[in-house]
């Protein structure tokens, strides 16, 4: 195992084109954009299906259907259709993050204790209040776990962007491969894995912070 590329200070200067910090930034940019777009699309749909129970079949099967779409193929299809640029990458990655977010939003809504919802109604809460102040907070832990797995997946998968000429940490893999520099490929793999772990930790902390203590039992 040759770590020379990873530990070469020259590859860590923020101002150099294609340096590791620059690639991390572009990588995160793809990841964050895909997660935001994916959440904006999938969360309302998942919540709606979970809340009303209509279209459950779709929500349950969206997960596996989405996973079965090969991201590389989708990406190459999009680049062939739309040309080089950020849009094809975002489409491919967004398709990847929608299923786990949708499915977990649905599952979070379906698995919460209906008696609590009845109690909230009995207390005279309006439907919007029930949704926002009872159902949503209670579904949050399950939803967060879906979001976290979406984030993990998209961090590892965003590397394929480099296969179609974009940036991100995949550059280290593709370029390292093209010039037969395994130390560079290794650096890419390590940085991606570390990035995934760090992102997951941050999301875990965020989860502790936003999930109601009454649910997590931390103050019990």
């Amino acid at each position: 195992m040759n770590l020379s590329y990873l530990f070469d200070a020259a590859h860590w200067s923020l101002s150099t084109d294609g340096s590791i910090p620059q690639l991390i930034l572009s990588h995160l940019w793809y990841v964050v954009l895909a997660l935001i777009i994916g959440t904006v699309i999938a969360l309302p749909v998942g919540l709606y299906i979970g809340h009303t129970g209509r279209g459950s079949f779709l929500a349950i099967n969206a997960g596996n259907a989405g996973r079965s779409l090969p991201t590389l193929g989708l990406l190459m299809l999009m680049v062939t259709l739309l040309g080089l640029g950020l849009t094809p990458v975002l489409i491919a990655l967004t398709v990847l993050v929608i299923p786990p977010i949708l499915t977990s939003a649905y599952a979070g809504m379906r698995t919460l204790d209906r008696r609590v919802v009845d109690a909230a109604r009995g207390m005279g809460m309006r439907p919007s209040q029930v949704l926002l102040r009872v159902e949503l907070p209670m579904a949050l832990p399950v939803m967060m776990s879906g979001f976290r797995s979406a984030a993990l997946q998209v961090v590892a998968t965003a590397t394929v962007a480099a296969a179609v000429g974009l940036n991100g940490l995949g550059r280290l893999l593709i370029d390292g491969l093209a010039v037969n520099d395994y130390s560079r490929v290794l650096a890419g793999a390590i940085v991606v894995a570390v990035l995934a772990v760090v992102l997951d930790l941050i999301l875990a902390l965020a989860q502790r912070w936003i999930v109601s203590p009454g649910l997590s039992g931390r103050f019990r």
Partner: protein
Amino acid sequence: MSTYLSNNWDTILTALRQHIWLALLPVVIGFVIALPIGYLGVRFPWLYHPLVNTAGVLYSIPSLALFVFLPVLLGTKILSPLNIVVALTIYTVALLSRTVADGLRSVDDIIVQSATAMGYRRLRRLTDVELPVALPVILAGLRVATVSNISLVSVGALIGVGGLGQLFTRGFQLFYLEPIIVGIVLSVALAGLADLAIVLLQRLVTPWTRFQGSAA
């Protein structure tokens, strides 16, 4: 589209066959490896968290990097399909050992205690009671692993071995949609079939789950 299909039928079939192999062999091997690992994570509870964390890290290694690195680690040839098989086996084990552990942990303690009271010893209790009861969870994990393996194989095309992924790179190099679309459709269909097969298998091996549908 039809001209493409008729001209390239053999290529497509070969790619499909390779794809099936490369995706499903790791599922079988990975499942066999994950069973004991998952069990250990339950038998020795202090192992559970290290297990889950290791699995998480392994799962976040980009597949392309694994495909490229395995020849260096294993001494295999760089175009050997073995690299793809081993890489996907690693992902499968990472995913399934956690599911197996979670499945076994989900078994109601009352069931375990009743089995013990009925005279089951540890190993037989595991194979005859705990595993069957944990099966729905384990098979759900198996579905995820199978489907994601089928879609991951195509990344191998970037290093020259990738089943249907070859159709993607081919279409991409010529800016030609047909091979890419055929590759995606076949890959999704394959995943759907494999998924369905596991669901049917699950019905067959866990007949009891059908009778309690609404009770949960």
